[in-house]
């Protein structure tokens, strides 16, 4: 059962507690949107789920496929089927998109079967082309150094390309829509939609309704001060779009200060 279950998660960054007992369950095959004002801890949650060493977990558990993933290394989490689309993808000069993806895919195969000899090159090429076509990417993209000199839109597309190739069971998309023009946004959203199915769950972190117009989320959460404070259907996102976060702040700051 690939439901993701976050229980009372507490995370500290450079001595400051950012996640303060966060609880969240994402059912298998569901897409959840996560919204919330700047500084509420959304990206911290994303990085923590992937295991970034700068985010220190001081309490709680995250269960996925029968394991507390907080005990796993980042590469092991990836092998388990977790994927993070970075808000700021990192450039790896000298390593082409194709080379990188092949290494990643082969690492996954090897994790499943240590005897695996790697994906045959023709099969890999076919896969690459198929996924690039899905995202309307030029095939020359494969030969470029990963994220090196990419435009904002290219970087985000490259993230979705990786996601499509690695075929995760649970993905966190950290502001994948930021910095995208309308066309790029549609491409990226279509890429996510194409992956959608009973075996793909996602947590889509965004500030804007426009991405959610393409990716209709099953559930919407609002995060504030390190916790999930509101949960609802797609209408919750529309309310935020119309009214902003003030009502959330007003409703929950009291709770916070009352503690």
């Amino acid at each position, binding site marked *: 059962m690939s439901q993701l279950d976050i229980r009372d998660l507490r995370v500290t960054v450079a001595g400051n507690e950012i996640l303060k007992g966060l609880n969240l369950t994402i059912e298998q095959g569901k897409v959840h949107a996560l919204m919330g004002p700047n500084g509420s801890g959304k990206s911290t949650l994303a990085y923590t789920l992937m295991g970034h060493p700068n985010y220190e977990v001081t309490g709680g558990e995250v269960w996925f496929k029968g394991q507390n993933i907080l005990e796993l290394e980042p590469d092991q989490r990836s092998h388990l089927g977790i994927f993070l689309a970075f808000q700021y993808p990192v450039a790896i000069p000298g390593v082409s998109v194709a080379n990188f993806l092949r290494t990643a895919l082969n690492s996954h195969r090897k994790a499943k079967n240590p005897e695996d000899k790697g994906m045959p090159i023709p099969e890999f090429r076919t896969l690459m082309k198929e996924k690039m076509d899905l995202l309307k990417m030029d095939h020359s993209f494969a030969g470029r150094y990963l994220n*090196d000199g990419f435009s904002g839109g290219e970087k985000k597309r490259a993230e979705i390309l990786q996601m499509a190739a690695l075929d995760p069971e649970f993905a966190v998309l950290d502001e994948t829509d930021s910095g995208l023009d309308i066309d790029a946004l549609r491409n990226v959203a279509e890429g996510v939609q194409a992956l959608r199915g009973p075996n793909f769950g996602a947590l889509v972190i965004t500030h804007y309704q426009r991405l959610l117009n393409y990716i209709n989320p099953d559930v919407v959460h609002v995060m504030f001060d390190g916790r999930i404070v509101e949960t609802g259907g797609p209408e919750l996102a529309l309310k935020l779009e119309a009214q902003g976060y003030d009502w959330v702040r007003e409703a929950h700051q009291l709770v916070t200060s009352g503690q």
Partner: protein
Amino acid sequence: MAKKKTSARPKKAVVRKKKVATKKVAVKKAKTVAKSKPKAVAKKKGAAKSKAVAKKRVVTRSAAPEVIGAGQTPRVITRGGAAAVQTKSGFPFNAEQIPNGVKEAAFLHSYRKSAWNQFEKLPLPSTNDEAWRRTDIRQLKRGSLQIVDGLAKAARDKLPSIPARLLKPLVGKGHGGQIVFGPGKTSVQLSKAIAKQGVVFTDFATAAAKHPELLKKVLGKVVKPDEGKFAAMAGALAGRGVLLYVPKGVQVDEPLHSLLWGPGAGLAYFSHVLVWVEDGASVTYVHESASPTIGEQSMHAGIVELHVGSRANLRFVELQSWGEHMWNFTHERARVKKDGNLDWIFGALGSHLTKNFSEINLEGEGSVGRMSGFYFTDGNQHLDHDTQQNHLAPHTSSDLLFKGALEEQSRSVWQGMIYVAPGAQRTDGYQANRNLVLSKQARADSIPGLEIQADDVRCTHGATVGKIDPDEYFYLLSRGIPPVEARRLIVKGFFDPIMERIPFEGVRQRFQQAIVQKMK
């Protein structure tokens, strides 16, 4: 990029000078240069920060511009002004050991004799010498070295033989010719087609017997035995020599290959490589030095002399994969005539310690020299590459890129100098050295230098020392790439720009394999 954004900043100094000529006297030029060598050491310490120092040095001395005309020998500054002379060098070699196989080649013997005299006269380099400041050879057990040719045949036969993989072509599909120096015997092959073109590619003994006038013409013309103790030693004692001669206008299509195999402990190997490409000719030549690693020290001293004639083309690939017990010393120089083109590639993976002097003299107008180097050290290896790009004529251009990665406690030194002679106007010189330090204990020193005596030039240089960026590393891990693979991928990416300069699949593959081996 596998460098810390905040720290490993590439520094560039573009020197553009126009009409700065004054009457400053340049009497003490060479001396001053040797002494004022900068101590810009980029040193890695601690995990938290990567420190990068890329100190530029621009020595500007403006003398009245003098244009170098034909027949004039330009003055070249050389580094390494000798310190106090030491009487005993501690090497147990004697004049009886000078190779003297071919009686009729008197000139060869007299060259070696005179080199021997220099060897006896010259002091052993010490860390007081500027060029040797960072490379200490006191731990070399000189007294217990024995020249390999002095070994009894039975002992030589017991030495490890050459692995077949080293004989495979590194460039192209096949060899046009191959010379293999085993411990006991030398084999020489050259395709009939190439031999028919008048190309000579053979060992010294054969050259001395069959082409004495040719050998005489090219021997010792580019590197002089008196340039240092090890140059003299190699000049006097080199039993392993290559002569490659390409006649005027001849294009050699298939690459040539030579392998110097130097196995065994407590042994001294000497080599001398002579390449002479006449006007308008072109050739690709790969020379490799290799041996298996064993416990005790051995040494190699070598000379490499390259002559690239007018409009000629030489592509020279040198691979150094000595065992990690080897103490390796080489003096190498190329001279390039008018509109000649040299593409010189260095790959250094082996040896315990290397001190390599390599120099390009761009002597002819319009000549071009490119030097591309890669090194990867581990264990307690110490590689010191000392490069010099001498622009001795107008309109010359040089382009140097050396990239290195360092594991464990290893150390690298690169010091490079671009020299522009008076009157060598409109030159374009570039040098860059990039280091990726992979362990807290490793250290890379990177020391660029410029010495410019012309007033209309463009010289650029940069040096960086950095470490793996944790964000890059995490990004790779997050995609399921395990730690060891992730580091390797970053290192391969780091070297990619230098691999792009090496259009030889075999050389690239060899290096990729070395990365895998060194990053376990």
